[in-house]
């Protein structure tokens, strides 16, 4: 199913008065793999939480596929937009890996057979089938990260949003995560500070700063622009800096 996501003049202020987003306009087209970059507090997490309807925009509208985000469309939108949090301990809340992956599909009301199939497929996709019966707290951090991704892959979302998927991973774990992301056919938005990963994996980049989109274009063009990067609290990726 085609799944573009459109943010039209979206503004959001947190209840404590923090102005997180100000008239953001964005379009993510079906099948795109996009990097969302910006310094801490730029509004990246807010954009991610808005996409899934966990936060509601104070102004503007968000359209996922053919659905505008409202209270009535929350359920189908959450089925279409999968969110993977930065800290896997926030994502994995059930007592076994299997139950955690099954959680999303079960909430969709799928049959037991279908749920089991999805759990098996998701575990296979992250190459961790053997950990199905394990408790999440028994896993290594890298394994938790991959299982957190599997919990969302099992929902077969059209649109996948990942928050810092490579953070705190060792080089091998990071490499495995990158291969995994590369293989995902859905539309993918990744909020990250891992500029080398963005350079290698994600053809398009959006830079956000102070709650506004400040740049949007081809990754290799934007990430090579030293003035742009420095002025928004970022830096050149190592691949550019040392080439």
């Amino acid at each position, binding site marked *: 199913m085609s799944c573009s996501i459109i943010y039209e003049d979206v503004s959001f202020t947190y209840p404590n008065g923090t102005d997180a987003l100000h008239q953001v306009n964005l379009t993510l087209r079906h099948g795109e793999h996009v990097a969302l970059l910006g310094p801490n507090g730029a509004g990246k997490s807010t954009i991610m*939480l808005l996409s*899934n309807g*966990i936060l509601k925009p104070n102004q503007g509208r968000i359209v996922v596929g053919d659905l505008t985000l409202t209270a009535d469309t929350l*359920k189908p939108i*959450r*089925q279409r*937009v*999968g*969110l993977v*949090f930065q*800290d896997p*301990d*926030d*994502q*994995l*809340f*059930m*007592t*076994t890996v299997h*139950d955690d992956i*099954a*959680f*999303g599909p*079960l*909430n*969709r009301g799928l049959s*037991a057979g279908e*749920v*089991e199939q999805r759990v098996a497929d998701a575990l296979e996709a992250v190459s961790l089938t053997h950990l199905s019966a394990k*408790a*999440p*707290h028994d896993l290594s951090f890298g394994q938790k990260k991959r299982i957190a991704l599997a*919990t*969302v892959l099992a*929902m077969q979302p059209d649109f996948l949003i990942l928050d810092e998927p490579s953070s705190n991973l060792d080089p091998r774990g990071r490499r495995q995560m990158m291969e995994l992301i590369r293989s995902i056919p859905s539309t993918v938005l990744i909020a990250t500070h891992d500029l080398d990963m963005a350079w290698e994996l994600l053809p398009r980049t959006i830079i956000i700063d102070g709650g506004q989109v400040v740049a949007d274009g081809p990754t290799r063009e934007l990430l090579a622009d030293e003035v742009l990067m420095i002025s928004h609290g970022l830096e050149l990726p190592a691949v550019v800096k040392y080439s």
Partner: protein
Amino acid sequence: MNPFNSLTPQSKLLGAVIMVVGIVVSAPHTAFSAGAVVLLVSALAIIAEARIGQMLLRSLVVLPVAGMLSLFYPLRFVAELTPAAFVTAYATYWQPMLALIVTPWLCVLVMMFLMEICTQEDILYAMECLHLPHILVLLLTFMFRYVDVMRYQLRASRRALVSRAPGLSARRQVMLYGNLAGSMLIRAYDQGERIHAAMLSRGYTGILPRLRSERMAVPDAIFLVCTIVFACGLLLYH
């Protein structure tokens, strides 16, 4: 073959609860009735190939609390604050004091046996099947899941505290640990918010869905009848 494998989690939980009720209602226990409970649980543990030593050891966890309650019990009967009155109260009420220790210990022993024959998931599943309040099952699910995360955070905070403040006075340490408990609470609240967001994003609507479906059968009925007979036996002996 372990016959407990053919029982459903709900009958195991129900059986343990029946035994606990029997133990509580038939208190105070004599050496004979307490011994009978210990023998029965040990025999069941052998049949279930459970770790008896670990079970017994873990059951001792209740002793500090039960011991303290027991220690204070005779004080309510002390009429005047003289050494003789204290000695008389303790000499008169040593049996209820003992009961205050033995009864909870036997109950915990039964629960430790239950933990040996059931996984955490089994117990949660059984609680749902027995229609315990959903919020209770949800709370226990999160407690099982996050106790290790909390332990890790507590250890990390303790290390941070110790590394920056070696050789603190006991009074200052107590104050700092008080602060630590406060910050742990706030952290737990924050994490709770994030977990709730993660649950919502995966379609959570207030009910924890589960895949399992196990119905009670003849072995469950036999097991439950046996536990009822045992509990009634304790009562009749009492």
